[in-house]
C-alpha cells in the first residue's frame, strides 16, 4: 500500500493532532516561511538530481566546490584574533598556531580600519580595543615576526583601508624574502556591506570601488594566490537580516564588484576565481546547511549565465564561515559553547572552506586565551571525532534539506530581482533599501523574543538570577600613549622627503586611473603611515555620509 504525504497528513497526523495539538500554532524559518510537519517524496517531485546537485567539484557545485572536500583536506581552522599592539597579537597568533590552528585571521582595531593612526585624535579610547593597531610597516613586521608568510595563509578583515593593509603585508613578506607568487590569504575589501551594515567606510562608493578593482588587477599579475575580496553576508546577518536576505544582499554586492571590474577592462574568468565569500552561521541548524548549499548553486548560475564564465573556478563559491556573534548571550555564557558547536557543525555540513568559531565569552568582551582555545577545540572535535567530515555533503537527498535548499534559493533570487529592479546594490544602498530591510528583520526578531514567540535559553526562558561573569580580557589602557610615542619616533627617523614625495604621487593618482597598489607599496616601504595615506585620499575624495533610515 502506498500513501502520499498529503494522505498521511489527513489521516494519521490529523487524528493525532486533534487530540494532541502542536506545541506552537506554527513553525517558521528565519524569514517567516512556514515549515511543514513532514517532508516526503512529493516535496521533490519535480526535482532532478543532476540539475540540482551534480557532483562535488562540478557545476552547479551544490555538493561542494572541491572534488575531494574534507576527505582530502579539512577546512582551514582560522580564528579571528587581534588586540592591543602588534607584539601582543603576534604572541596570540603563535599560541594559536601551536594549538593546531591552520591559518591566521587578523582583527584590526577601529582606527586602523577607518584610516586613523593610533595617535590621531579620532582614535582616542579605541586603540587596540577590537583588534590590533597597525599604522606602519614597522607594526606589520612585528605582527608577522617569526611567522613563515610563504606557508601560512592570512585573512585580514579590512575594507576601506584594505589595499593599504595588503600593501603592508606584501612589504613585510618581501622583507622576509618570501616569493610573492606563493603568498596566500584574503583581504575582506568589501566596502558595500560597510555602507549597509558594518560601518567602517571612509570614502564615497565610486572611489572606493576603484580601489577594489585596483586590487583585482594588481593581484592578478603580482599576487596570484591572493583572494582579493571576501564578499560578506556575515555582517548583514549579524545586523539582523534573514538567511535568504544574507545570500541575496551579498550576491547583489558581488554583481556590483564584478560589473565595476568589467568596466575597468578586466575579464570575468581572470579574476572570478579569486573572489571569496563569507557567510554567518546562525542557530537554525538545517536552514543554515541549506543556505550554504543554495549559495553555491546561485553564484554558479550567475557566473555562467550573467558573465558567460568558462572557468569552473570562477563559478565556485569558496567561503569562510563564522558562527553567529549575535546569537551569543551575555546571560549564562557557557551556553554559548553549545550554540557555537551546533553552528560550527552546520557550517561543516554545508561545506565551508574555513571556519571561525566564536568564544563563549564574546557577548561580554574580547575572548581570553582559554576561551579561544575551547573554540578551536570545538572545531577539532567536529573534524576528528564526529565523523561528519568523512563523506561529502552527507545531508544531500534528505527530503527536507533539499526542499529547504530550493526554498532558500528561490527566496534569495526573488530578493536579487528586487534589487536588480531598483538599479543594483549601490542604488539600493543610496536609497537605504537593504538597510531598511535589515532593520525590519532585526526589529521583528526582537519583538518575537519579547513575546516569547522565539525562545532564547537563559534570556527569555530558563532564566537564572545569578549573573556570573567569567574573567575578562582587558586591553592595557596606557596603550594609546605608548603607540603615540612609537609613531612620533618613527616619523622622526624615516626619510620624510621620500614620504612627502610618494604622498604627492598618491594625491595625483586619486584623479587618474593609475593603479594605486604599487603606489601604496612604495609609500608603506618609505614608512608612510595608514593614516597619512588615508588623509590624502580623504582630502581628494571626501567622506561618505551615512544614509539615515530611522
Amino acid at each position: 500500500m502506498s500513501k502520499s504525504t498529503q494522505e498521511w497528513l489527513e489521516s494519521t497526523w490529523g487524528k493525532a493532532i486533534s487530540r494532541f495539538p502542536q506545541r506552537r500554532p506554527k513553525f517558521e524559518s528565519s524569514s517567516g516561511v512556514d515549515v511543514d510537519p513532514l517532508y516526503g517524496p512529493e516535496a521533490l517531485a519535480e526535482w532532478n538530481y543532476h540539475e540540482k546537485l551534480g557532483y562535488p567539484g562540478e557545476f552547479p557545485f551544490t555538493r561542494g566546490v572541491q572534488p575531494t572536500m574534507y576527505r582530502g583536506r579539512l577546512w582551514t581552522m582560522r580564528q579571528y584574533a587581534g588586540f592591543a599592539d602588534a607584539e601582543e597579537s603576534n604572541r596570540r597568533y603563535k599560541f594559536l598556531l601551536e594549538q593546531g590552528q591552520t591559518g591566521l585571521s587578523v582583527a584590526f582595531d577601529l582606527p586602523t580600519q577607518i584610516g586613523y593612526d593610533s595617535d590621531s585624535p579620532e582614535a582616542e579610547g579605541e586603540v587596540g580595543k577590537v583588534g590590533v593597531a597597525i599604522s606602519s610597516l614597522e607594526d606589520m613586521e612585528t605582527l608577522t615576526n617569526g611567522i613563515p608568510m610563504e606557508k601560512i595563509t592570512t585573512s585580514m578583515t579590512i575594507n576601506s583601508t584594505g589595499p593599504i593593509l595588503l600593501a603592508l603585508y606584501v612589504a613585510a613578506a618581501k622583507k622576509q624574502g618570501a616569493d610573492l607568487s606563493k603568498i596566500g590569504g584574503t583581504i575582506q575589501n568589501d566596502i558595500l556591506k560597510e555602507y549597509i551594515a558594518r560601518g567602517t567606510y571612509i570614502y564615497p562608493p565610486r572611489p572606493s570601488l576603484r580601489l577594489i578593482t585596483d586590487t583585482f588587477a594588481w593581484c592578478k599579475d603580482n599576487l596570484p594566490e591572493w583572494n582579493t575580496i571576501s564578499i560578506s553576508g556575515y555582517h548583514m546577518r549579524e545586523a539582523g537580516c534573514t538567511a535568504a536576505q544574507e545570500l541575496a544582499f551579498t550576491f547583489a554586492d558581488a554583481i556590483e564588484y564584478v560589473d565595476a571590474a568589467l568596466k575597468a577592462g578586466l575579464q570575468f574568468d581572470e579574476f572570478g576565481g579569486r573572489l571569496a565569500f563569507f557567510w554567518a552561521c546562525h542557530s537554525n541548524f538545517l536552514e543554515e546547511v541549506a543556505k550554504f548549499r543554495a549559495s553555491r548553486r546561485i553564484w554558479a548560475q550567475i557566473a555562467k549565465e550573467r558573465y558567460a564564465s568558462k572557468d569552473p573556478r570562477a563559478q565556485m563559491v569558496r567561503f569562510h564561515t563564522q558562527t553567529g556573534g549575535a546569537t551569543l548571550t551575555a546571560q549564562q555564557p557557557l551556553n554559548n559553547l553549545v550554540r557555537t558547536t551546533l553552528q560550527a557543525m552546520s557550517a561543516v555540513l554545508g561545506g565551508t572552506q574555513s571556519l571561525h568559531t566564536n568564544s563563549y565569552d564574546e557577548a561580554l568582551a574580547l575572548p581570553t586565551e582559554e576561551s579561544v582555545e575551547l573554540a578551536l577545540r570545538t572545531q577539532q572535535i567536529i573534524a576528528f571525532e564526529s565523523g561528519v567530515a568523512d563523506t561529502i555533503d552527507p545531508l544531500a537527498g534528505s527530503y527536507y534539506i533539499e526542499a529547504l535548499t530550493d526554498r532558500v534559493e528561490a527566496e534569495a533570487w526573488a530578493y536579487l530581482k528586487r534589487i536588480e529592479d531598483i538599479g543594483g546594490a549601490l542604488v539600493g544602498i543610496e536609497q537605504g533599501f537593504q538597510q531598511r530591510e535589515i532593520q525590519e528583520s532585526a526589529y521583528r526578531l526582537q519583538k518575537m523574543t519579547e513575546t516569547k514567540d522565539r525562545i532564547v535559553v537563559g534570556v527569555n526562558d530558563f532564566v537564572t538570577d545569578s549573573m556570573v561573569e567569567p574573567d575578562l580580557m582587558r586591553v592595557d589602557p596606557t596603550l594609546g600613549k605608548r603607540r603615540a610615542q612609537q609613531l612620533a619616533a618613527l616619523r622622526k627617523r624615516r626619510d620624510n622627503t621620500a614620504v612627502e614625495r610618494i604622498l604627492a604621487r598618491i594625491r595625483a593618482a586619486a584623479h587618474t586611473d593609475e593603479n594605486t597598489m604599487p603606489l601604496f607599496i612604495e609609500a608603506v616601504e618609505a614608512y608612510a603611515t595608514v593614516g597619512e595615506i588615508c588623509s590624502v585620499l580623504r582630502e581628494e575624495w571626501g567622506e561618505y555620509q551615512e544614509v539615515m533610515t530611522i
Partner: protein
Amino acid sequence: MTQERPIRVLIAKPGLDGHDRGAKVVARALRDGGMEVIYTGIRQTPQMIAEAALQEDVQVVGLSILSGAHLELFPRVVEELKARGVDDVLLFAGGIIPQEDIPAVNKIGFTGVFGPGTDTNDIIAFVREHAPVRA
C-alpha cells in the same frame, strides 16, 4: 486643558564603532512607545552628541557602544553636555559594558545600563519613569 508633550530622546553612537543594530532597535522601540526619537547615526564625537542634544532639546540621551571604549568616551560626552549647560537630561547606556564597569558608568550619571538580551519594554519603562519633565 494641557496635552502632555512626548518625551524627546537622542540615541547616539559615540566613537568609531559601527554596530548599530541595538541602537536602531531601541530607537524604534522608544518611538513605538510614543516618544520622539532622534537617532544620530554612527561615528559621533562627544561634541557632536552634546551639540545634537542641545539643538534637539532632548530630555534623554541614550548611548550605545560595543567597542569597549565606554570608559573613555562616556565621561567626555558628559563633559561636553555640561559645557553646553545641558545638565538636566536622563542618561542611559547600552551595548557591551562588562558588569564590573557598571558602577563607574553609573557614577558619571548613566543610571540605566542595558546589556544584550534586554527587553525593550524595560527601557521604555525606565525612560518614562526617570525622564525629567519639561514644560
